[in-house]
């Protein structure tokens, strides 16, 4: 199998008033073509920054990004334009990711206008095709975003991202602004499009049940780093990193039999500004020991199951 996207030791730091904010710190992974990689974590863990850095909405601070075997870490402006046709993003909030002054048609055809010289007729046809594909009524063609509900807006965002027929799509919390019944509609649509067009997704979310449902493989992030990475099912059957365990335990499950005995994590996420070396979770970890203050590496402890925890690697947990 070939990996479509491969990042190695990717870093993205932001400078802030109080020091360097390590939003993404030394992250490595690869995504196979046609697969869905879920990236899950709590707010501030750097998952959105990671997606944006890969598609060059942010410039990386360090590390490499490869696309289809080609290094794209420092592309020229022209290369970025070419890449954008292959790599797209679906944003979290369909209320703010659509220009309020553009009709549905204008929004969907914007990428065509921006980068292709094609006839107006062809453009209209393309928009019709996309609207059909994402399930938006023809009569809404000239509607404005504020007249539509969240689910429909998100469909427009999806259509806009897919009209250039990209191969790789970063889905940045695409359903977290939606109600459950609508969320299910959009998740089905995303799954459907992925299958039909053999798309590769990087699916960023904070919702454990959504990430379990949609992903082939999952990365769990904490304060800019991947703490655990493995196939989706395995993560929920056998979470190894203490943070993953706490995260899964904290999910409010709809199963009431037997009543769940939750592990309540103490403390709150610490600051990603100038973090100390060593495991970033150790301040909240109930298993923390001295060795946790050493830098941790992501080790393969079982086939395809990577964990960044010295104690798991040493078979102590």
């Amino acid at each position, binding site marked *: 199998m070939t990996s479509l996207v491969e990042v190695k030791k990717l870093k993205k730091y932001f400078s802030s008033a109080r020091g360097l904010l390590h939003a993404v710190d030394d992250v490595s992974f690869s995504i196979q073509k046609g697969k869905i990689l879920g990236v899950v974590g709590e707010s501030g863990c750097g998952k959105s920054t990671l997606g944006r850095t890969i598609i060059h909405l942010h410039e990386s601070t360090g590390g490499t990004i490869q696309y289809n075997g080609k290094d794209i870490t420092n592309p020229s402006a022209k290369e970025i334009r070419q890449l954008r046709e292959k790599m797209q993003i679906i944003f979290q909030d369909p209320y703010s990711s659509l220009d309020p002054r553009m009709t549905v048609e204008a929004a969907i055809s914007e990428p065509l206008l921006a980068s292709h010289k094609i006839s107006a007729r062809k453009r209209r046809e393309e928009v019709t095709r996309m609207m059909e594909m994402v399930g938006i009524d023809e009569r809404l063609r000239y509607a404005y975003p504020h007249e539509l509900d969240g*689910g429909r807006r998100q469909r427009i965002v999806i259509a806009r991202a897919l009209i250039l027929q990209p191969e790789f799509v970063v889905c940045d919390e695409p359903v977290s602004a939606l109600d459950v*019944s609508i*969320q*299910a509609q959009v998740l089905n649509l995303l799954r459907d499009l992925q299958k039909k067009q053999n798309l590769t997704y990087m699916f960023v979310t904070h919702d454990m*049940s959504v990430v379990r449902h949609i992903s082939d493989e999952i990365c769990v992030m904490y304060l800019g780093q991947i703490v655990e990475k493995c196939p989706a099912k395995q993560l929920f059957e056998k979470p190894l990193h203490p943070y993953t365990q706490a995260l899964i335990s*904290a*999910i*409010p499950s709809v199963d009431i039999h037997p009543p769940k005995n939750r592990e*309540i994590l103490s403390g709150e996420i610490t600051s990603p500004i100038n973090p100390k070396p060593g495991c970033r979770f150790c301040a909240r970890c109930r298993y923390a020991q001295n060795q946790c203050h050493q830098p941790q590496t992501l080790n393969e402890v079982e086939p395809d199951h990577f964990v960044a925890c010295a104690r798991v690697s040493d078979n102590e947990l």
Partner: protein
Amino acid sequence: MNSKDQSAPFLEVKDLEVFYSAGKQKVQAVNGVSFSLQKGRSLGLVGETGAGKTTIAKAILRILPHASATVKNGQILLNGTNLLSLSEERMRDIRGNEIAMIFQDPMTALNPILRVGNQITEAILHHSSMTKAEAEKHAMEMLEMVGIPAERFGEYPHQFSGGMKQRVVIAIALACNPALLLADEPTTALDVTIQAQVLHMIAGLKEKLGTSMILITHDMGVVASSCDDVAIVYAGQIVEYGTLEQIFDHPSHPYTRGLFNAIPSMNIDQEYLEPIDGLPPDPTHLPEGCYFSPRCKYAAEACKTGNMPVITTADGHLCRCCQYNLVAKDEKK
């Protein structure tokens, strides 16, 4: 819908109807809601955005905006007293004292330019005969109780994280030891691990203080972990009501079932989810008959006109559906 228990309930809401008017448009937010709550229990009001859950809570506390909202009908009985007929003055004694509310967004629920300690003390001073020093001491105890060091009494809201702010909001709500707590999506704005902390804390404090609670949420998982009874709200009506077990083990209304099916399962692998088709109705133009009928796969002619009957399917388990028998045949997967 009436409770199974015949002893006088602690809180009883009867036929509550609320609408908002904006210009000529009339938004029917709450359309004949009735439920009751026993002392010490917690009721989950579950529904999607715009279903009218928050309006119900605000109507109980009588803090709906006077300019636009009108309570058209109904009674809200707290220990037998109808809150809707009390004077504003008497109602002020109840607010914050007997009934308190936790708001959804801790980021905006605290006054940004007052110290958090003063925001707690204020409520205590208002409802008790304590001196300022005593009230401050009590406020510090409240902070400790919600897991915030008392030293932070003099800090401003912007110095707290989201989870911490919500703890402060809870401390304010519980400061006067209210008998009823209205919690409006108290954990929606928080991360999962923080949500678990806060829910755990609310449950513990509720137990300790014997508070009854109405928990408003859109998250079935939160209901499962915190409520005794559940009411499913759709378009300003309660479509199903029962104990936690009744609703979760035997959901009867097509909407309730749809909600459960739409949630990605944590145990079963599904290629596709089962969404509910269509969209929630426009509250300015509610459909005739059953409000859910346009989205319901069981909908028949009978569903398109008149009031839906409320059927008692089991002891205290109520369901507003005229196709109930048909639905019941399709057992929950």
